[in-house]
Every structure is written in structure tokens, then in C-alpha cells.
């Protein structure tokens, strides 16, 4: 159980390798968010609320662990300026069984999207724009 907020890139393989060392885990689900191209996007800028970010992410991890039978959880979220194709963040969940791992990973992603204090600004070839929250993201919380 650990969260990191960092400027630097991270090594997904190494993170998952660490989580696999606990032989109580039979299932490992990982989500990676990537800077997606399109509309002349050249970069994404991530702002956050440093005093709140880690506690918000830790609360999401704690809630997932209370709801499902999990072995370990991991959240890494980058901040700063990211180029196309760079990883923005990852969530990983290990569990004895796959249903718990999948559900907890989806839950953590849904809450991270709408409850962790990050904001994305898109940098296009001409100009910038703050990403609008989607109604569907808020709606996704209601299923849990």
C-alpha cells in the first residue's frame, strides 16, 4: 500500500514485479493512463494540490482495501508537463482472486478521476485549454 506523486517517469514492469513477490497474490491488475494524441495536442500539463494529493490517494486505497480482499495496492501519479505517449499515472492491485483485483482497480480509477486533486491542461499547437471534467466520470462513482 503506497502512493507516489512525482514529476519523473516510472517503470511499470518494476512496480508490478515488486507486487508479485507476495505469493498470496494470484491476480494482478494494472491500469496505466497515457497521454493520448489527437487534435494537434503536443503535451499535457498536470497541476495538483500538494497538501491534499497524497491523503486523497491514500483514502482511495484504504476504501478499496476495506471493500475487497486485496493483498496490495499501488498508485503513482505524475505531475508537470508530459509529452504524447508518456504515462500519466498507474493504479495496480494484487489480490488472491481476479474479480476482486479488477473491481478494486476500476473503483480506484473512478474515484481517482473525480476525487483526487489533479487538473489537466492540454497544450495544443495553438493555445492551451483546461480539460473539462466529464459528466460520465461523476456518474461512474454512483455504481460503487
Amino acid at each position: 500500500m503506497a502512493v507516489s506523486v512525482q514529476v519523473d517517469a516510472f517503470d511499470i514492469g518494476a512496480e508490478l514485479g515488486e507486487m508479485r513477490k507476495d505469493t498470496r497474490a494470484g491476480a494482478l491488475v494494472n491500469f496505466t493512463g497515457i497521454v493520448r494524441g489527437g487534435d494537434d495536442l503536443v503535451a499535457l500539463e498536470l497541476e495538483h494540490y500538494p497538501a491534499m494529493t497524497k491523503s486523497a490517494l491514500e483514502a482511495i486505497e484504504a476504501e478499496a482495501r476495506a471493500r475487497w480482499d486485496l493483498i496490495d495496492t499501488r498508485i503513482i501519479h505524475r505531475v508537470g508537463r508530459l509529452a504524447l505517449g508518456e504515462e500519466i499515472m498507474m493504479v495496480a492491485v494484487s489480490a488472491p482472486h481476479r474479480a476482486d483485483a479488477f473491481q478494486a482497480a476500476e473503483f480506484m480509477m473512478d474515484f481517482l478521476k473525480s476525487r483526487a486533486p489533479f487538473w489537466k491542461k492540454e497544450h495544443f499547437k495553438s493555445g492551451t485549454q483546461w480539460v473539462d471534467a466529464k459528466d460520465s466520470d461523476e456518474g461512474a462513482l454512483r455504481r460503487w
Partner: protein
Amino acid sequence: MRLNLVYFAWVRERIDLPSETVETDAKTVAELITELRARDARYDLAFSDTTAVRVAINQELCEFSSALADGQEVAFFPPMTGG
């Protein structure tokens, strides 16, 4: 009482300030917003659509009806878009 206000994303850009300390008698977040909007066009613009603004007191998400107390950190920002 004294509050530390912090702003993020386009709220920060519209107010053109990352943080500030204010003296206020506002009892709730909503009253504080009304005071801020009366101050200056930048605040008036930033809070013109409060359905698009979220608030946290001492790093916990809360409501516009939440009560304020001396020494708190009150953060205003748009809906979050991490992940």
C-alpha cells in the same frame, strides 16, 4: 477570523493568484464566495458559475454550506481531472 485561501487550475488563473490570506466574518463557504465576488471582477468571473467550482477545507472536500473557522485552509478549484 483569518483564512488561508488557495486556488488551482482555471480558478487560480482567473483570480491570477495561487494563494492569499483573508480576514472575513463569513460563516460559510457560500458567504465567503459572495464576499470575494464583490471584491473584484477577477473573483466575480472565477466564481460566476459555482456549479463548476469545488471547495476543500483543510484538504477535505466539502460543501458550499460548510461552516468556516479561524485558521482554516480553504481551497477552490474546478472539478478534478486526474487519472
